[in-house]
Structure formats: C-alpha cells, structure tokens
C-alpha cells in the first residue's frame, strides 16, 4: 500500500498537469480503486505532515500543487529564475539584431511578421542590445545593435566572429547552401541594405 502512495506521488509529481484516475491506474498498473485509495492516503499524509504540496482534485483526476500560503515565495523564486531566461521570440529578435545591426524595430517586425516591441524591451533590460541612434526615415525609428555584454556572454572578440552558415554546415555536415549565404548581406554597405528594406515597411 505504501508503495502505491509513493508511486502515485511520483506520478503526480512528474506529470505537472492533472492526470485522470484511468491514466494513473494504467501507468501504475494497479486498479482504479487502488489509485483512489492511494490518492486519499497521499492527500491525508500531505495534510497531516504539513507538507509544502497538496493533492488537488480536479474533474476526474488529480494533481499536486504547492500550498497557497507559499505562493509569494514561489512567485519570487520563479521570478528570480526567469531572470536568466529568454523566450524563443526574444532569442530570435536577438539573433536578428546580431546579424542585421544596426536595425530598426519596423525592420525586425517586417522580417518576423510580428511586432517585436516586448522582446526588444526584454533584451534592452538584459543589456544584450542597445540603441544606436535613429534612422533617417519616416518616423525616425531607433536603431538597435548588440552590446559589449552580448559579446562577452558569447565569448566573442568581434561581431565578425559570429558563425556563418558555412560553420553550421561544417558542423552539421549539410551541403553548403549557397542561397543561404546571401542571407547575410553584411558585405553590402549597411546604408544600402537598410534603405532597400525600408521600402517594405508599412
């Protein structure tokens, strides 16, 4: 019996989201009644021992949640942990700034197909990018570039050290795709590049 309780605890712990009695029984290879009994025991144990988590019964199933009274601390911890984290969207924006700098928000939005203001804010907050003056076009938008911190973080001496598609191909053994090399119009003067892209801005 005790093993069932431990097993159920492990299952609910690893699941993250509510699991139905059926699925729990199937995974544990025990009957639904046994699952029910083990859940009850686990619930009581959490209660009696004043644990940090409790069993939360939801429609047709159960999950483990942290106790409400610890919410503030939990939020604080997740907030702290989040400090080093970037969303996929932010990483994409960072990569665009890195490879296309100096670049404006409208240009980034054009390339990504979505407004990227909040990602830019995140990256500015984390000091991975900074402003580089304004662009002399309608609306004089800010230009963005990567910071020294960015270089330090990635261990680069110079922006020229950013990997090129050939580097990726070398590592991944992909046949060199010449079409992709032209994605990096770094060789052109930046003015020329940004001007032509500007037309596409809405």
């Amino acid at each position, binding site marked *: 019996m005790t093993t069932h309780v431990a097993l159920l605890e492990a299952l609910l712990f690893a699941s993250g989201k509510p699991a139905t009695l059926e699925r729990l029984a199937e995974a544990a290879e025990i009957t639904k009644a046994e699952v029910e009994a083990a859940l009850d025991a686990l619930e009581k144990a959490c209660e009696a021992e004043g644990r940090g988590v409790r069993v939360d019964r939801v429609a047709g199933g159960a999950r483990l949640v942290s106790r409400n009274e610890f919410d503030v601390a939990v939020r604080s911890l997740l907030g702290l942990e989040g400090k080093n*984290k970037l969303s996929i969207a932010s990483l994409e924006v960072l990569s665009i700034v890195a490879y296309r700098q100096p670049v404006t928000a409208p240009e980034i939005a054009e390339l990504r197909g979505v407004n990227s203001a909040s990602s830019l804010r995140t990256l500015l907050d984390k000091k991975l990018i900074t402003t580089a003056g304004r662009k002399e076009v309608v609306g004089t938008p800010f230009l963005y570039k990567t910071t020294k911190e960015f270089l330090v973080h990635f261990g680069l001496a110079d922006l020229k050290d950013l990997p090129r598609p050939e580097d990726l191909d070398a590592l991944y053994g992909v046949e060199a795709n010449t079409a992709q090399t032209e994605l990096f119009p770094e060789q052109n003067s930046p003015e020329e590049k940004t001007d032509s892209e500007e037309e596409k801005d809405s």
Partner: protein
Amino acid sequence: MAEGIRIPVPAGADLMQPYPVKLPTFEGPLDLLLHLIRKNEVDLRNLPVADICRQYHEYIVLMVELDLEVAAEFLYVEAMLLHIKSQMVLPRASAVEGEPLEDPRDELVRRLLEYRKYKGVAESLHEMEAVRLGLWSRPPARVELTEGEAEETDLSEVSLFDLLTFFKGAVDRYRAQHPPSMEIAHQKFSIKEKMEQMLARVKAGEGPVPLSEIFRGLSGRGEAIAIFLAVLELLRLRVVRARQDGEFNEIYLDPTGESASLEGYEESYR
C-alpha cells in the same frame, strides 16, 4: 562519415582468433590500438610495436574485406606505426653523450595514455548516466509573471549556433511568406512587341499577309495568345484590316495606312 567507424566483427572472423565474444565497436584508431594492447596483455609503456603493427594491419585488411570504408585516420595511424617500427630497427645513438635515448614510441604512448584517460572518464560517465536516466524532474510551473511567453531558454545554454539557427529560421520564414515572383521562370511575350512585329510585317509591302502564316513556328501557346491579342489590338486601332473571301477561307491582313501610337501596351502574356 569519418566519425563512428564501426567495425562489426563477423561471426566467422578468425583472423586473430580468440576475440572477446563481445567485441563491440571502435571509436577510432586509438581505440583499436588500445584494444590490441589489452588483448595481447602487453605493457602500454613497453609496446611490442612489430606485433601490434601486424595485428593492426590485419584489422585494416579485415575492414577492407568487409567493404567497410577505412577512414583516413586509421591509415594515418598505420603509417605512424610503420614509421615507429622502422625506427626501432635502426641502431640508435644519443645526440648528446650521456642523455637518455629518445624512444620512438614515446609520442604514441603519450597519446594512447591520454586517450585512455578520456575513455575512462567516458565510461564512468556512461555508468553515471544510466543511474540518472530514470529520474524525472517536474516541468516548471508556469506563472503568469513571465508575460505568458511560452518556452524559455536559459541564456547560458544558448550557443552561437543556436543564434544563427534562430536568425536563419526568421529569414526562411520570411522567404516562405514572401516568395519571389515566378516571372523569370517563364518566357514572357509582350503584346506591344508583337504588335510592332505584325505591323512591320504587314507594312513590308509584300502584299496581304495570311493570318495562318503568322501563327506558324511559334514557341508555344503563350506566344500564340500574345500574337492573337496583338492582331485584335491592331484591328481595333484600325491600323490593320482583315479580309476574308468566304467562310473558312484564309484571312489576310493588310495595312490601312493609318498610324497609331503603340505606347501604353505593356501587357504581356506568358
């Protein structure tokens, strides 16, 4: 393909008979050498180079016989072994009196010891991993305070290649959504151009031009449609007129003597 040279040992391989039954795979020439040293129960530091060299060579031959691609690395090490072997045979003299002789095997032994070190670490890691693979952590709780953005990555684990991959992803997506126009792929026929050609031909003074002749030797339907539209246009502008003697007879084109500007006919037909 250079990596992961796997040498499956065939059931009937008796080149060097008492193989350990489970001779798995070799990660490279150094791995093969270590195996031979172990198999022969010889001291790595006092390597019987001639023996090892012969057995090594037999392995290479076996690989060739099994139609396995022998990576350049294996051949390189074989050459190295042969070189050492030849040096061992030569009488050696110390360059400086009293200094210990340099053993031609030193470099190889050093490399083998070093490699074996890492191989040992790898094996420890292998055992450690086995214990760890059964552990499951909890997917981190999603709290709304991270502006609802889905997956988050720790910046310390983002490599330069990830950065490039993200950028490529954005550019590829952009390209997929903004495909370049396909015009280059097709030959285009300008109606204006065809009008000019028709007019020149009709006005050449060689008498009325039969319509059927105009449609001869065209590149395809696109050109035919362009010519047809050009003829209709010329008729509409009254610079050309068409005559037909009777039903289903040939239609002849000849100039009316009028002239009209062909500017503005930029329409094309594919």
